[in-house]
């Protein structure tokens, strides 16, 4: 097992959380999300995002609308739904718990 793969798996796990976080602030389109995620090095390849967005949309966490663009064809703007916000709250909570859990394990065994 190489470390790159482990990192990728870790990132993938929290990617859904990150997407909801980005969308909770304001409505954006896919490329905006990609740019943010790339900046923070959450994703390596862009393709990763699309299946996630589609699945979250189909799960009712997101919805989208088409918006005209000055630079080309219309863009898909994603919005977080009420269900999405509920879901995000739960994820916030479990993220806290996860960090605490990892933290406590590190403190105990990393000495």
């Amino acid at each position: 097992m190489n470390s790159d793969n482990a990192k990728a798996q870790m990132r993938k796990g929290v990617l859904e959380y990150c997407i909801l976080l980005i969308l909770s602030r304001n409505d954006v389109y896919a490329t905006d999300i990609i740019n943010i995620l790339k900046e923070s090095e959450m994703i390596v390849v862009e393709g990763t995002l699309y299946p996630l967005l589609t699945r979250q949309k189909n799960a009712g966490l997101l919805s989208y609308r088409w918006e005209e663009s000055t630079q080309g064809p219309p863009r898909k703007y994603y919005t977080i739904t009420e269900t999405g916000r509920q879901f995000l709250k739960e994820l916030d909570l479990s993220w806290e718990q996860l960090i605490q859990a990892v933290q406590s394990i590190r403190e105990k065994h990393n000495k």
Partner: protein
Amino acid sequence: MKKTIKVNLGGLIFQIDEDAYEKLKDYLSALSNHFGNEAEAKEIVSDVESRIAEILQAKTSQGKQVIDINDIEDVIRIMGNPSDFDTESKEDKNFSYPSGSYRSQKRRFYRDADNAVFGGVCSGLGTYFNLDPVIFRVLFVIVTLFGLAGVPVYLILWIAIPAAHTAAQKLEMHGEDVNISNIEKAVKKEYEQVRENFKRMNARNRFRDFFEELFRAIGIVLITILKIFGVFLGIILTLTGICFIIAFSALIIGHPGMINIEEFQVTHLSFFMEQFAEHGYLIILFIVTFLLFFIPVCWLIYLGLKLIFRFKAKYLYAWFASLAIWIMSIILFIVLLVLIGMNFNEVNSTKTTLNLDTKNYRTVYLKINPSFQDQSNIELLLGIKEQADYYLSKDKIIYGRPRLTIRNSNVEKPSVTIEKESHGSTFDNAANNAQQISYEVIQKDSIVLVDPYYKINKSEKWRAQHVDIDINLPVGTVIYIDNNLATVLKYTETVEGIWYKALIGKTWVMTENGLAPIDKHNKK
């Protein structure tokens, strides 16, 4: 110099090099293969397309006009391999683009356009079966020589089977060998899986899993049997279709102008057909009949080949087009038959009676008129066994066999009744056709001479004409029936125990119950 292709990607137009286009196309099809075929997959791919369009747009806005292969490689690097797309870690982690992203590595039947002589069918077959395409070329030539069947089979394959153009298709074309050891491998793999699952069963609910696995195993066996059966059925269908074509072309090419089906025989077919309709009509009728037969045979062969090779169907419109043509052929066929049949709508006949003189002679001799001309150089045109015979002379005149019967007249006066009958478009037309039949019976002293054929005048067409001759004799008349009457003598009333065909070459006497042997009568 490179060829470029114009593509619409996510609503934007791009000029793109051909090789770059192939690469992009393969990538996108690998994506859609990866995600399956549901609506979700389509949405993902179309989102990805839009993003690719955006990236490419950024490249072109830098003053670049044509997208080349480096740009596409860039894009693929940015977007990532299909295997990277999955967030849930799946078992197929080690799959990678391009070879792994295709669901199956099974070999598919494609036309091999790179090594083609005509359409690449034979080279495709060669690749599929791992044989030299020359073998298939020779086979096609042989099958074509024996009844032309090779041509339609080749055309069907050419139309139905896509050529391997893209890299993905070429990969599929050269996929894993279709041979016994690979089938064995596949079956073994299935078996191993089943066994593995059986082992794991211990930890789980024994009972339910046992049945689950049992049904799964049965399912695998059934599917395998069905697949084998499908190929078998396909071979049968294809061969049946080819046999039909061979039989059909043998009918046309082998004996132009002759049909011989048991008791029904037609020679000089083209001449005979012209009797029904004008030449133009006949050509249409011929084409329509041909299509009526040929299209279903093509379907049969196509289905058979599809079952054998399980190729991806292309050109769906060919089905609809052929169906439309076929239905049109049926309609045209019926219309033409009705039009032709109209000439036979009505029947009419004319009767003439000739009085015979029998009183002055002890015996009347019934013979074929020996001076009848054209008797030697006529050939059978249409023969329906025991029903009717028509003949054609060298100078294209139609003759027919009359039907002669001898009966008890119940009156003193002996006579000959000649009834000429014909079909026609109208009642009057039929009567006119009947009048155009020439037939004669004459008496020379004690001899009654009948013509062996009736003649349909040259200006007339064949309208199922008939001539019936009744020889009406009063009781007590003695008659000798000559041997040469055998061809025209039909059912005649006789005393019990004598078959009418036995009447010839002997002398008979008319009684109340029909003809009777002369000696018996005399004894009475």
